[in-house]
């Protein structure tokens, strides 16, 4: 209840960015299943990992706790598999948990405290032996994946969130979402050799998720003000530096074969939709990929295997959520009940 601090916050969407390819599986205890990060709710310390056994459909809850004998913490916002390690940004606890992919044992808990102030890490992306973490205090931190030390803090805009890598550049969405009424509007480009900010794109109010295609485009969700200024898709062309609002309603997205799957939850009408946008032709292929009936509160979409998608159903954010499986024709094929507010998965083959 004392969450006045957090109630005020105007932001956050699941960011699915262009991450390094999911690695092939090695031998380990976990296979043929899905590791799910459940975000939980602010101030309840109930962010958890669930394991979905795909052969039995059984779900093991609170896996981080049972493996590591301590809880994950408060508000796990993003999860990335890279180099045999899993990186989880835990915003409320202000930590990045680094765990072993095969055992899920914690390798290191990196505290994101600076001057005794919580930095609140948000999103994570990898590039050439480093992972980059955006944090609400206005920085992107580079972490060496061998030493697991923060090697550099790069000053960016206000309350950065989404990150993605394209052509040796790191793109950072500066939301400024903690300044309600005076949000940030920019995406910064950081040169990955020099780790310096080299360019700024003005995309609109409160940018969140970012993702890259193979045609020198970066797509950004500018979330607007949750009112008259709607949450829409904006395209940055990194060659000619142009910025275009595509006018497509969006809250988050994922990229498969240069096709952008855009999820949108309209909270006024409580309706969920997924649109498919072709990045090569820059044309909408399908504006209603799934049926609104199949989902209560769409919280994001991610590809699964080569022929499926998983939509995260947050069930009004206060009830335990579901993974909703869809085939390529957008039909619901399966639903699995997981933890509170599922937002990321890692598939173990």
């Amino acid at each position, binding site marked *: 209840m*004392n969450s006045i601090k957090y109630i005020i916050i105007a932001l956050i969407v699941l960011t699915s960015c262009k991450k390094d390819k999911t690695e092939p599986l090695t031998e380990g205890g976990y296979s043929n299943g899905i590791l799910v990060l459940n975000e939980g709710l602010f101030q309840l310390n109930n962010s958890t990992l669930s394991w979905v056994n795909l052969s039995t459909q059984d779900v093991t809850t609170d896996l981080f706790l049972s493996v590591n004998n301590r809880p994950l913490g408060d508000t796990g916002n993003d999860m990335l598999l890279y180099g045999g390690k899993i990186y989880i940004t835990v915003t409320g606890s202000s930590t990045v948990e680094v765990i072993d992919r095969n055992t899920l044992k914690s390798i290191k808990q990196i505290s994101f405290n600076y001057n005794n102030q919580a930095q609140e890490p948000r999103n994570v992306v990898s590039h050439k032996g480093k992972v980059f973490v955006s944090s609400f205090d206005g920085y992107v931190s580079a972490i060496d994946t061998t030493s697991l030390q923060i090697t550099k803090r790069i000053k960016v805009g206000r309350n950065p969130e989404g990150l993605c890598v394209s052509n040796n550049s790191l793109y950072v969405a500066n939301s400024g979402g903690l300044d309600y009424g005076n949000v940030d509007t920019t995406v910064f480009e950081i040169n990955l050799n020099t780790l310096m900010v080299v360019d700024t794109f003005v995309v609109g109010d409160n940018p969140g998720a970012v993702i890259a295609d193979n045609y020198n485009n970066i797509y950004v969700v500018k979330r607007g003000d949750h009112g008259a200024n709607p949450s829409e898709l904006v395209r940055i062309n990194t060659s000619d530096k142009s910025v275009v609002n595509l006018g497509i309603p969006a809250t988050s997205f994922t990229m498969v074969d240069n096709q952008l799957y855009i999820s949108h939850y309209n909270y006024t009408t409580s309706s969920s939709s997924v649109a498919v946008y072709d990045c090569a032709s820059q044309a909408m292929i399908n504006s209603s990929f799934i049926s609104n009936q199949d989902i209560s509160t769409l919280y994001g979409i991610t590809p699964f295997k080569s022929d499926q998608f998983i939509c995260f159903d947050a069930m*009004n954010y206060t009830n335990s959520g579901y993974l909703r499986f869809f085939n390529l024709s957008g039909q619901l094929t399966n639903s699995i009940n997981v933890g509170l507010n599922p937002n990321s998965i890692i598939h173990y083959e």
Partner: protein
Amino acid sequence: MMLFIPFFIFSQKDTTTFEEVTIKGNHFKANQHSTLSQEDIQQLAPHDLGTLLQYVNGVTIKNYGGIGGMKTLSHRGLGGEHTQLVIDGVPINDPQNGQNNLGNIQPNNLEEVKVSHQNENSLVPVSSLIKGSSIHLRTFDQQFSPNLLSVRSSITLGSFGQQEAFVALKNGGQKTFLSLTGGLRSYKGNYPYRLSYGNETKEVLRRNNALNDYYLSIGGGFKWHNHKAHHVLKVSAKTSAVDQELPGAVIFYNDMAQETLKTQNTNTGINYSLISKNFSLKAFGQYAHRFLHYHDPTFLNQEGFIDNRYTTNSIIGGVHTRYRLNNFIFHVGNDLGYDMLLSSRDLGNPTRYTNTAMLKTKYQMKYFSAEVSVFAQSFLDRNNIQSHRNDYHKFHPQLAVFTSDQLFENLQLFAWYKPSSRAPSFNELYYSQVGNKTLTPEESSQVDVGFKYFKKINKFEFSVNGNIFKNEVRNKILALPTQNLFVWSIQNIGKVDVFGSDIHIATQYKINNDWSINLQTGMSYQKVVDISNSNSPTYKHQIAYTPALTGNATISANYKNIGLHATGLYIGERYSLNENILSNRLDPYMTFDVSANYAIKLKTKHTLKLHAGIKNIGNASYNFIRYYVMPGRNYFIKLSYEFN
């Protein structure tokens, strides 16, 4: 959400004895109250009003921490906004939050606390009669005294840096009194708590949890009589300030909270009563000023901090008259209040007129008495950031039937029906992003059937009180995440069904002149379920933070000047969210307190009393609200001096 602090006002009560004699006649003496006497209050040695009210049946205190921690009330499944706090006969409201933080009302000057569920004959403000229930506090500050000088004073020391000093002086007489009361409280609040990490348990110290406060009040009264009518006039002026750190919920791996809250309350009031055989009248007026300052020096916005200030000004006045004609008693009353809020946030400049009018008739027959009343509630809200807001007017009929002593000796049966509305608070309406200007008032109704039994056999007294109740809340005002996890909004969507019962047993056995034993115990069961939407996963689930089962027991033994006391409190399982699943479940807990006191009569009328005790003697590690950890075993010692 943050709450603010009320403060004390003034009133009358010493005429109540007179009223009861006049009015009740041969009707049953027991009122529809649960009462804590001055003795009960002293034995429980509560930190604040919230801690004290845990021992009243049917009241659930949502407890956000030790001393200074916010405490709000829920009564029979209705939110705290449905309960009216009345201090010395004057209603205390917090229009910004809708309910009072009971953690900031100190108990040193309390002489009586009663929770009233049902309409009664006494001339209390009608705005408290329309509410689901009301809590009436009577303080030392506002009572007449025949003594030239009365003194109440105490010094308390306790664990975790608790230091309290209190002094109250009263100059009394046949017709007047003048009182001066002041107190200081200071608390470090650095108590240890246990965090269970899977199989491991870690002991951590609570930090950013200190508190300092003071209060000061002056009161005065004058009474006179002529032509069979008694007149009483009382005035008061009070001020208080609380300066506290806000530790918030325990967040794993992030113990860096630095938020603070300062509150200042000042108010002044006047209260007039006229009592005669057939006609009585009471009128009151009050002006209250509240200032609140919230500061978070670590917020990650552009400025790097949050600094919010709020000022609320409230004026309330009311009249309640009673006229007796043969077997009828007629009541007419009206309260009118005006509230306005100014702030450093973009809440606009909200104002509200609240009017409550009442007409009531009571008819007393030989075996029964019946009451029929009609209330009219109006809320007129305006705000410069809202072009138009509908006024709200609603009529609420109330019914009650009681049996008299003539029908069953020592036993009273009763039944009542009581609907009510509560307005959305200014925060619920206008708080940026969260607030919702389209909210309508939340409506509740209560049906209660109960009994009271009282028996005295020689030196043994025994009373039982039981109720079965069926309540409903419509248009329940709920805060829910909407756009995403972080953007919450207040909505009128909930519907809640409440079914429950409670029983309270009290016995007193005076063995001889030296020995006496008191035992009381209460239990309450309430099924408070969400019936908003049959397709929701939470349909018919117990709503969050509403334990189905609660219980308490108190035993005290007195031998001459020595008293020994033990209390136990049980809070059943509850859920942190409305979905009743294992991961949301909070364990039941039990806490026990023991204490002993020794009184020394120094000279005539001079009493020195030493009271020492152990709270949570079992060192239970518990929290009512998830991660708002409560202190383990702790100690206190209190030295009081009283004169007259």
